[in-house]
């Protein structure tokens, strides 16, 4: 895994993390390099603890590529978040991106996915499925 470089650490993070009710909403503004992804993960996990978030929504609508490292990071992040008590939903995957990921066999399993913010909030608020059970298979 790449180390977080001192120089890149000074750059502003190209992800905004906003609070919405009991959830955190993280939006990617542009593609992140690996170092930025790791910084984002640390920042998000800090905030989950600080704000006692129950849900995390990660919006990737601005990304036209989700490579294997990004998928891996998102999966790992969701697992850590779950251990800290928050369910993660990835939203806004573009059609082309979704199909490219399916073709390459890179999945986000077991992370939940939803079409957009509204669907994700709906999923988090009305989820009668306990965390850890994959209900995206229906």
């Amino acid at each position, binding site marked *: 895994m790449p180390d977080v470089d001192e120089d890149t650490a000074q750059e502003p993070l190209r992800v905004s993390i906003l609070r919405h009710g009991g959830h955190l909403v993280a939006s990617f503004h542009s593609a992140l390099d690996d170092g930025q992804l790791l910084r984002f993960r640390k920042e998000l996990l800090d905030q989950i603890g600080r704000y006692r978030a129950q849900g995390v929504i990660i919006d990737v609508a601005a990304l036209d590529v989700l490579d294997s490292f990004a998928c891996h990071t998102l999966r790992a992040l969701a697992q850590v978040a779950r251990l800290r008590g928050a369910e993660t939903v990835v*939203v806004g*995957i573009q*059609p*082309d*991106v*979704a*199909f490219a*990921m*399916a*073709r390459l066999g890179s*999945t*986000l399993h077991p992370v939940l*996915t*939803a*079409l*957009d913010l509204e*669907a*994700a909030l709906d999923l988090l608020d009305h989820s009668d499925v306990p965390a850890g059970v994959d209900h*995206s*298979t*229906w």
Partner: protein
Amino acid sequence: MNGTSGEIEESEDVAAQQSVADRPERPADQAELLPELVAHLQKNRSELRQEWTNRITDAHLLSAMTPHEVFSEVTSVYDNYVAVLETGSVVELREYARDLSERIIPRGVETHEVVGIVLLLRDVLARSLFEKYQDDFDLLTRVLDAYEPAANRIANTVAVSFVEERERVIREQADALRELSTPVLQVRERLLILPIIGVLDNARAHQLTDQLLRAIRKHRARVVVIDITGVADVDEPVANHLVQTVDASRLMGAGVIITGLSSEIAQTLVTIGVDLGKMNTVGDLQGGIEEAERLLGFKVIRTDDAGR
């Protein structure tokens, strides 16, 4: 095939432009003879045109068009033909030929007819040159040397333009057919159905995926029912593609229910080792829609009146 004809056309184009630009450098013979030839053809326009029209009628070409239409097209083709001989540039002729093709293709005019009439004109004009120069064999040879390459180029240009136009029409129709072949329909809020009928080949499977993923976003769908009752069998790449489509839909937040799997397709899916836990399949479309409604929280109740 396409590329080759394009190249031929391209090189002709260059040749045509060069001959326009470098007209003075044409062989002295041609430079002298072509204008004479053109003058001859212009002078005898009416008779030659009539002769040509008769030959077309005798050969039963262009039978889909009325005599009046044939006459007017014949006139413009003749004039264009002579103009090309005069200027050496096929650019205008090509445009005219495309335009003509656009008009006559819907009438059911075949390629052999178009090529046939141009070759007939070539013969009619050549015959008239024979008559004119029959006393001087040497001169006749030189006249034909000047005439033949130009005439061949014209025949080539017309035929290529016609075929290109035809191919364009076919491409357009194929596109339209593809668009129609995979409808994505919304039956309830957040519920799409995608009935597939006919042969599911690789190209169609790709197009299906593309349309489905876009429709999921457009209709904000949460459940999609793909009904493949009308598909008899698929090969392994297409089966794999279907599985990938299910995965991709799920990444976009929509669950997929597949209905109407034939036993052949079911066997193919098992053969390629699909993780069946990921596939939600229901026997028929009705069952699939009912399952989807259940997932979305719809409940369909029959009123008492309607039951009677």
